[in-house]
């Protein structure tokens, strides 16, 4: 009876969540990461209500307050046309997050599906075709290629996202490919196959759920890299165009006024660091979390 009681307790969903949180929160840094990411996301969502001068996010000029250093009415100072840097930075989170989210939410499914197919068909022609194309993409330097694609398509936020997506899916393809090639030989896949399961079931219900944890971890870590790459593209003028309050664009225009009006560039830079650090810490935490979970599964 005690065993059954224990099973009942373990399988109750709320308990499962509490157990996961306990294990996740044992690593302090991952909690810091989660809180950081949470703050950034909240700031982005509620930017119009939080920013002290929401109108400054757009094309506004207010030369009377231009180039003011940080003070009580403008905590981060004002830029060369008198807009509040704090307000623009808060709005900047929106563009950074959107960039990462859009790129990953397109690149991930594409890469995962292709990797799944190639891994399952390992050794057949489909595998070779998909993986050789993937290899070609992986051989190209991502930033240079993104610059090139973006330059061809023309500078805009949308085109920057397209360029990044094109360069991003191969990483997921390869990650999933490696896992599927191993997982498809698992006994439970053979057991399901013998039980009459068809290929879509084997791929989507037996193999894919066992890759999700590593895909999720990579997505969190990649979010940081995507934000950086997006900011880089904006910095060189290929991403969001002024007056869009994109962090990269703000750094680019602010860098013209260094070092005298340092606050125009430094605060957006710090915002980028804050965001990237948060996603990195969260990603590392998730990786440890899933690694422990897998160990526990192996132990049984």
């Amino acid at each position: 009876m005690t065993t059954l009681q224990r099973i009942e307790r373990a399988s109750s969903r709320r308990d499962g969540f509490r157990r996961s949180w306990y294990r996740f929160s044992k690593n302090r840094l991952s909690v810091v990461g989660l809180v950081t990411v949470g703050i950034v996301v909240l700031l982005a969502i509620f930017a119009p209500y939080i920013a002290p001068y929401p109108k400054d996010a757009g094309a506004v000029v207010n030369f009377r307050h231009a180039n003011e250093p940080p003070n009580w009415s403008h905590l981060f100072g004002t830029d060369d046309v008198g807009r509040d840097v704090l307000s623009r930075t808060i709005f900047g989170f929106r563009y950074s997050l959107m960039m990462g989210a859009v790129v990953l939410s397109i690149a991930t499914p594409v890469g995962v599906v292709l990797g799944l197919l190639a891994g399952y068909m390992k050794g057949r022609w489909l595998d070779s075709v998909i993986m050789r194309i993937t290899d070609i993409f992986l051989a190209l330097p991502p930033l240079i290629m993104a610059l090139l694609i973006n330059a061809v398509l023309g500078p805009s936020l949308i085109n920057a996202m397209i360029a990044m997506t094109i360069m991003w899916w191969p990483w997921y393809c390869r990650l999933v490919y490696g896992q599927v090639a191993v997982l498809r030989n698992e006994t439970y896949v053979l057991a399901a196959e013998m039980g009459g399961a068809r290929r879509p079931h084997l791929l989507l219900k037996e193999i894919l759920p066992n890759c999700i944890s590593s895909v999720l971890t990579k997505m969190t870590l990649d979010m940081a890299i995507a934000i950086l790459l997006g900011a880089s593209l904006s910095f060189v003028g290929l991403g969001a165009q002024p007056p869009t309050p994109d962090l990269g664009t703000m750094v680019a225009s602010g860098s013209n006024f260094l070092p005298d009006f340092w606050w125009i560039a430094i605060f957006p830079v710090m915002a980028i660091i804050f965001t990237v650090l948060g996603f990195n810490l969260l990603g590392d935490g998730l990786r440890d979390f899933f690694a422990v979970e897998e160990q526990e599964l192996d132990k049984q």
Partner: protein
Amino acid sequence: MTQEHDLLRITDLQVDFNTFEGCLHVLDRVSITARMGEKVGLVGESGCGKSTLGRCIVRRVRPVAGEIIFWSERLNNVEDIVSVTDSIWKQLRKQIQMIFQEPGAAINPVFTVGDQLRAAIRFSAPTHIGKSQIQRRAIELLQEVQLSDPERIMSSYPFQLSGGMQQRICIAMALGVQPSLLIADEPTTALDVTIQEQILRLFNDLVSYHRTAVIFITHNLGVVREIADRVYVMYAGQVMESATTDELFENPMHPYTRGLISAVPKLTGGGIIEGIPGHIPSYLDPPTGCRFCTRCPDVVPKCDEVRPPIGSINASHEVACFLYGGEAS
């Protein structure tokens, strides 16, 4: 023994693995049969190719020669598993189920037991069946394998259950498909002795009840004696002897079988038993004749040159050894 009643007839099966070291000749002209509802034991020490044979039957290993003739009740036809098309295999495979050594590995770790059991039932159903019907069948199956409180078991994840419970679930899933042949690859080896006993008894009862033919792969002679009607003794990829279980244990003829039986540790006797000196020969370059000749106490000169033909001692006892007649052809 009319051939119509053979559910599975494997003839001269040969499996080679190509590796860096060279070609491994893993199975050498193996022939076994299993009749409808018959429980066949396949014994031999680790690495003798018995699991490879099992994996050939489920098409995970491609033999280089030989055939695996399977009589399909559903198709009312015999098919050679080695050469059938994928579409026929899709219909055949449900009639062949497999139970594995590691029960934990045979259940997907990320879903609850119920999810998988219900999926297995859904796939095996000849027509579409409703959710409540699937649920009822799942509970039935778990009760059949004597798991108390099926609802609770179904909502748990595999790692929350013990090895014995997991193996019961595997048996439930395999039998839920109502196969005509069940391949059990060392199903009790990973379990401790008391659980092993329970699982064996349950397994035995269920396959007898469903009249499922079983190929029981094991290295444990005690288990074979309890389960099997008939036993094949394998050594290094060759079948050495086959007989009904009682006959084999009362009158073992092949030197290897005798060595194997005497090597079983007895609970009553003291001291460490001798066993069979030597090791399995390399599969890279095995003797062309009987592969046991390097360790055989009764070896004669022609043993390593010529494969001894399979000779019938009586209707149910066959042995491949020169000691019992069988001149070199």
